[in-house]
């Protein structure tokens, strides 16, 4: 066991992958000389050199597409898009190429690229720098979408993603980078299944990424009210681990989705649709959700807080679902 921050965990995962496989390299804006805009890649340039830790110009579409081309050419690139806010500039490459080339080529070509990006709000960065788009990306067939919410997953998921023959997008909630936890040395990690982070019998809090911590805290507080909340960390947003969702809800008969994405058309809706489809008759109450309000994220702390999911909102919504 070693205590690591989430930031260090990602860095260690990159290092390990680069040491194990010469085909792996990292490219993105300021990953090298600057040390990564969240200091994730700090020191890696010195260790691996500029050929494998590649600073790119501000050209999101081209360098993402170049990563995909390099993947088809035999490399295993890790493309870092600084934040998901800028990934919109690369979306054509992601949706029209990464997600379709295997299909369009009848299975001849695959694109084993890993695209990492920071996501989420909560740092007063306002409307253009606070998107939570991971759930939205999960709409696209051909992609695997990961949302590591724990230090252990930050450490473990990247290596698995690099083993995947198809494009994998990893969304790292920027508020998590300073989280710290012990991580087992030879942990095993999958990128297929959701994980129950806390057991409970009365209600399932279904969440991921930056909202896991809030959900756990809410669950803890709900306990004091006699409400046993199970917390399910989705981990993988596409394909969804529907089995895990349905079996948790089959047990608790009540569900609350906690999602930092905007409410309408968010992945929260998809989870509700799956629950209704697979578990309608066992529900004791309609599934509910706590999401971001439908507003571009405002700058002032109090408004931003009001716009994002919070422990209080989760507790209040859970009480409603419980009929209290």
């Amino acid at each position: 066991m070693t205590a690591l921050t989430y930031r260090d965990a990602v860095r260690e995962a990159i290092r390990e992958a680069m040491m194990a496989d010469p085909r792996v390299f990292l490219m993105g804006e300021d990953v090298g000389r600057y040390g990564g805009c969240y200091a994730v890649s700090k020191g890696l340039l010195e260790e691996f050199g500029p050929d494998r830790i590649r600073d790119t110009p501000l050209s999101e579409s081209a360098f993402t597409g170049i990563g995909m081309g390099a993947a088809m050419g035999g490399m295993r690139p890790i493309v870092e898009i600084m934040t998901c806010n800028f990934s919109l500039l690369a979306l054509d490459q992601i949706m029209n190429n990464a997600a379709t080339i295997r299909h369009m080529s009848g299975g001849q070509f695959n694109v084993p690229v890993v695209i990492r990006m920071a996501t989420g709000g909560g740092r007063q960065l306002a409307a253009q720098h606070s998107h939570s788009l991971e759930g939205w990306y999960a709409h696209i067939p051909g992609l695997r979408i990961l949302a590591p919410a724990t230090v252990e997953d930050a450490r473990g998921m990247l290596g698995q993603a690099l083993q995947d023959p198809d494009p994998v997008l990893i969304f790292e909630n920027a508020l998590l980078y300073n989280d710290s936890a012990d991580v087992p040395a030879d942990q095993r990690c999958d990128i297929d299944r959701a994980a129950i982070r806390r057991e409970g019998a009365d209600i399932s809090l279904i969440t991921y990424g930056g909202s896991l911590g809030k959900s756990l805290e809410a669950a803890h507080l709900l306990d004091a009210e006699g409400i046993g909340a199970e917390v399910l960390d989705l981990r993988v947003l596409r394909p969804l681990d529907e089995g895990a969702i349905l079996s948790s809800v089959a047990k608790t008969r009540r569900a609350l989705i906690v999602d930092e994405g905007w409410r309408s058309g968010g992945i929260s809706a998809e989870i509700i649709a799956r629950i209704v489809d697979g578990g309608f008759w066992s529900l004791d109450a309609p599934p509910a959700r706590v999401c971001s309000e439908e507003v571009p994220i405002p700058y002032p702390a109090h408004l931003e807080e009001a716009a994002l999911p919070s422990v209080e909102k989760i507790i209040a919504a859970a009480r409603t679902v419980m009929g209290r």
Partner: protein
Amino acid sequence: MDHPAGTKVQLNRDHCLTLLREMIRIRRFEEKCAELYTVEKIRGFLHLYIGQEAVAVGVMQALGADDAVVATYREHGHALARGIPATRIMAEMFGKQEGCSGGRGGSMHLFDKANRFYGGNAIVAGGLPLAAGLALADQMQAKPGVSTCFFGEGAAAEGEFHETLNLAALWRLPVLFVCENNLYAMGTALGLSESETDLAAKAASYRIASEAVDGMNVVEVEAAARRAVDSIRRGDGPRFLECRTYRFRAHSMFDPQLYRDKSEIEIWMKRDPIVRFRDWALKAGEMHDADVTRIEADVAAEVAQAVEFAENGTWEPVDTLLHHVGAESRL
């Protein structure tokens, strides 16, 4: 791929026959496609390359088996010239399993692993980053390949063109950008889309060496492509090749061509790359009428066989609809 790479065009009889045959293959194949489209054997969008054959054929002469090719939705000619069998291309146009993309792609998405043919990309300029990425992979693995990317002059207005040319030059990637300047992007003439219509000047602004050639002259194209590929293989970084050409047909099968005069088309048709090269080669004594007749006969047979192959091809069963979304191993 049996085209030997090298720096100079060897204009002997054999090579002349090859160039002519390759161009005629494309022409006759596509004439047949147009026919098959009207009887709805081929569906979706169909973009004919007729008139531009010298570009694909000329450039492919300079490439070897290790090189990668990325093309657009107007790529039947490139696929044929690259060596993908006409049978498998035609089957793809029909949507049959035996097609070079298993039937999933159709006319706009021809792919072939054996020939390192990476599509068939239908988003304008979307293939450029892929080609640069393939080149980066070769560079990082110290492989000798040159990645060649074909695109129309319309692509030059896209941001991805700019970003990719800059990165390719900055990283000295072994990539050959072949811009097929046929003067129109659908109905938009170059002068209506570019403030600077000299595409070579654009390339220069990224410090990429470029050359502009008569894209209706297969020998000139081949010679320029060989020079470019040679320089790229020496490690000099990317090159840009503008081929000035013209499409004789409509943009796609839906285009009433309101934007250009018949007379303009006629002028260009006088420069038909096939007729010009054939007449030159006959005059130069590199071939005889009988050769041309034989080529036409061979090609007619090849096209007929391709159609038959496609006709006899099979439809993928509907049960496998969800295949090729991700690796089967991950399902």
